């Protein structure tokens, strides 16, 4: 062992590259790459958030003359009124950017890169070059998806799910011209980038853990990253395959998703010889392939948030996480089940009713491990002593959203009830609370908590708390009422709901939601200010400002190139040893040697 420590101390003399471009731009250091991912995701979030504001504006006041916006965005407005094609583009790009380029990126690629080597006790990721390449591939994807706003026919407009034939026939909607092509290209970049990241995550976690850090001593954040990486590696290829087939259908006349006998604008799609251009393809095939990815993808967004939340709650409740093993098993169960529930997105799609039954079973089952997580969090908080830091507030926010958003899933999972609720705002409420909300709050919590390991400083607490309260209240204000209008039948992806008599009475609620959404959007300024101000001017953080236990808190803030100036610490226990009466203080870090009478964890 002494030998190993000596060898490791020797390695630490490897110096970081000195030139700015190699150190901060084309870096191979996981911490720099993490910040690159994080800041890019923030920028993408800003854009996707603005798109959502425009969607909300339209839903509340579709008749209003927004001349000033028309001047600002001439492509989207005609004499102050939004074009339907612009509206379709807005919700499509909002969904695509948020799901892939923000909420998969910030928690997984951002915090995964920052935390995995630090929590594992590794000097870097297993493949640092691949890691850097992954970021630049991701950035290409961002550039491509953003560039689609500037093509003449507009960005993709077939919804983030890109169901063919709408996404396959150029004449079906303007966005299905160049915009959809760019959408597919951006997806391919994203998937390639995510795959490189996934290879790194799994290899690092399996191969490069510090001595003594067994799998069941890993922080729950690391467990979530491990599962997420596996989900990504196994699920994303389905979207790659589907996208490739869609490219062939769109550009080379094949018929994977396109059936015979299509008639567009009263013109049959046939060649001069009277034969149909397409034969026998199945639009449902795309839905199966898409949701085979799509559902695990939902958990790719959520699992990291569940991991962050567990770690943050344990630290600030000053209590070990309750039921550590059942927490791990619950995440494994959620990840496993996520592969057999995709059909619950397709209850009314026309697929076989027997399949519908099978998918309802898996969907209802997934509620069991989810409930276990909530109860474990509540049990962790019971008889604790909570320090209400900003990070802790966000973590409690995740618990709250996980309860509120999870329960509506039980309604949607029952196939027959989904007949009424499918494609209504009820679904929008459900996934914004549980998937988007939990992921977003998780990222905010993680940012406040691990900010010292990014920039060596602490974020401003009063500003952070103000940001939390504005966001918490308006997030619920925005998304909770969508349950009610959803039950009333309010459709999603609809340019002007008030064309329908049965939706006209819901205008007041829509206006309330929109005002709430605008305040929610504005509140995020607090975060941006806090983030950039604190990154440069915040209070200096020591090694371990929160009295936490993980390996990331055993090195300086921010950690040096190579993460530990000397030898890598050796792990003796789990990361949740808080408030043990037998211990010398209220927390015992993972690398501290065993104390007298310590239970084995």
């Amino acid at each position: 062992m002494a030998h190993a420590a000596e060898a490791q101390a020797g390695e630490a003399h490897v110096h970081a590259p000195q030139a700015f471009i190699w150190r901060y731009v084309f870096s191979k250091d996981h911490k720099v790459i993490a910040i690159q991912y994080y800041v890019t995701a923030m920028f993408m979030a800003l854009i996707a958030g603005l798109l959502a504001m425009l969607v909300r504006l339209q839903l509340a006041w579709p008749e209003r003359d927004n001349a000033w916006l028309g001047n600002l965005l001439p492509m989207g407005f005609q004499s102050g009124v939004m074009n339907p094609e612009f509206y379709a583009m807005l919700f499509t790009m909002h969904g695509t950017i948020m799901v892939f380029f923000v909420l998969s990126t910030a928690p997984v690629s951002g915090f995964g890169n920052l935390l995995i080597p630090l929590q594992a006790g590794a000097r870097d990721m297993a493949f640092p070059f691949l890691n850097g390449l992954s970021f630049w591939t991701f950035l290409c994807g961002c550039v491509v998806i953003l560039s689609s706003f500037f093509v003449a026919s507009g960005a993709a407009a077939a919804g983030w799910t890109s169901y063919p034939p709408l996404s396959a026939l150029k004449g079906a909607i303007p966005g299905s011209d160049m915009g959809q092509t760019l959408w597919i290209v951006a997806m391919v970049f994203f998937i390639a980038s995510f795959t490189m990241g996934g290879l790194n995550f799994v290899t690092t976690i399996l191969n490069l853990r510090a001595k003594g850090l067994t799998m069941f001593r890993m922080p729950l954040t690391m467990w979530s990253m491990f599962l997420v990486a596996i989900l990504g590696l196994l699920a994303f290829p389905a979207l790659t395959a589907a996208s490739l087939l869609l490219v062939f259908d769109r550009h080379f006349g094949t018929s994977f998703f396109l059936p015979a006998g299509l008639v567009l604008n009263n013109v049959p799609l046939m060649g001069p010889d009277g034969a149909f251009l397409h034969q026998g393809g199945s639009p449902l095939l795309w839905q199966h392939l898409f949701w085979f990815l799509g559902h695990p993808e939902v958990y790719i967004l959520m699992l990291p948030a569940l991991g962050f939340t567990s770690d943050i709650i344990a630290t600030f409740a000053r209590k070990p996480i309750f039921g550590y093993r059942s927490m791990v098993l619950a995440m494994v169960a959620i990840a496993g089940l996520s592969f057999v529930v995709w059909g619950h997105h397709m209850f009314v799609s026309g697929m076989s009713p027997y399949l519908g039954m099978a998918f309802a079973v898996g969907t209802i089952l997934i509620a069991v491990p989810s409930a276990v997580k909530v109860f474990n969090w509540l049990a962790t908080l019971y008889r604790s002593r909570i320090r209400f830091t900003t990070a802790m507030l966000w973590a409690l926010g995740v618990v709250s959203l996980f309860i509120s958003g999870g329960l509506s899933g039980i309604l949607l999972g029952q196939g027959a009830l989904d007949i009424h609720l499918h494609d209504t705002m009820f679904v929008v409420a459900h996934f914004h609370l549980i998937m988007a909300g939990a992921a977003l709050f998780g990222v905010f919590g993680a940012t406040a908590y691990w900010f010292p390991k990014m920039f060596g400083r602490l974020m401003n607490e009063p500003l952070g708390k103000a940001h939390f309260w504005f966001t918490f209240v308006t997030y619920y204000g925005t998304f909770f009422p969508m349950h009610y209008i959803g039950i009333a039948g309010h459709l999603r992806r609809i340019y002007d709901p008030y064309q329908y008599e049965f939706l006209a009475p819901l205008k007041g609620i829509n206006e309330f939601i929109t005002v709430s959404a605008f305040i929610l959007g504005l509140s995020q300024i607090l975060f941006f200010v806090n983030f950039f101000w604190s990154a440069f001017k915040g209070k200096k953080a020591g090694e371990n400002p929160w009295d936490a236990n993980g390996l990331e808190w055993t090195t300086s803030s921010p950690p040096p190139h190579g993460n530990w100036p000397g030898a890598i610490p050796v792990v003796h226990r789990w990361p949740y040893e808080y408030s043990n009466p037998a211990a010398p203080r209220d927390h015992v870090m993972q690398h501290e040697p065993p104390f007298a009478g310590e239970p084995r964890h």
Partner: protein
Amino acid sequence: MPGEILEKARAHAGGPRGPVGSWGGGGSAGPDGGIAADPRRLGLWLFLGTVTMLFVGFTSAYLVRRASADWRPLAIPALLWWNTAAIVASSGALEVARRRLRGWAPVGAVPWVFATGILGVLFAVGQVLAWRALAARGFYLETSPHNSFFYVLTGTHLVHLAGGLVWFGVVLSRVRRLAYVPGEDGLGLFATYWHFLAGLWLYLLVLLFVV
């Protein structure tokens, strides 16, 4: 020369652990012992896992699509049998090369490495010729779903094979420089990928034309 090779063998026995890039022999050994082998090997297997899932996706699409009414089976182009022989022989040649290398005969391995590459290129060329032969008979990409799947699946396989050929270029130059350590399985990683491609091709052949 033998002394130098021995030196390398000794240096190698320590094994590459930890990050493959800037940390040289860095990182730390895994605590469980078992899996803490070469991270590159694990990474490669994970990559093969994700490629497998890609073809699982295609397979499910293929099986669904085959059940539709407009399915007209495509007769197998005879050239494919020769291509199959080439890719299997290429894998075989690579195995012989690895045996030579492991048996302390790096020089004897060189022709077999060449054979691996030539057979691999022959396979690739053969696949393109098979496409051309089909097109000449009027079987285009969009003619029928079986054709479409044939082109897409063989094309995707060929893209992965092209990546393998690039890697082969690296292997070849290292073999020619005698940079591999005798007694060690320096070609192991590449062989894993190359055999995977051969196996994948056999699977595709069975999927497309046998079952």
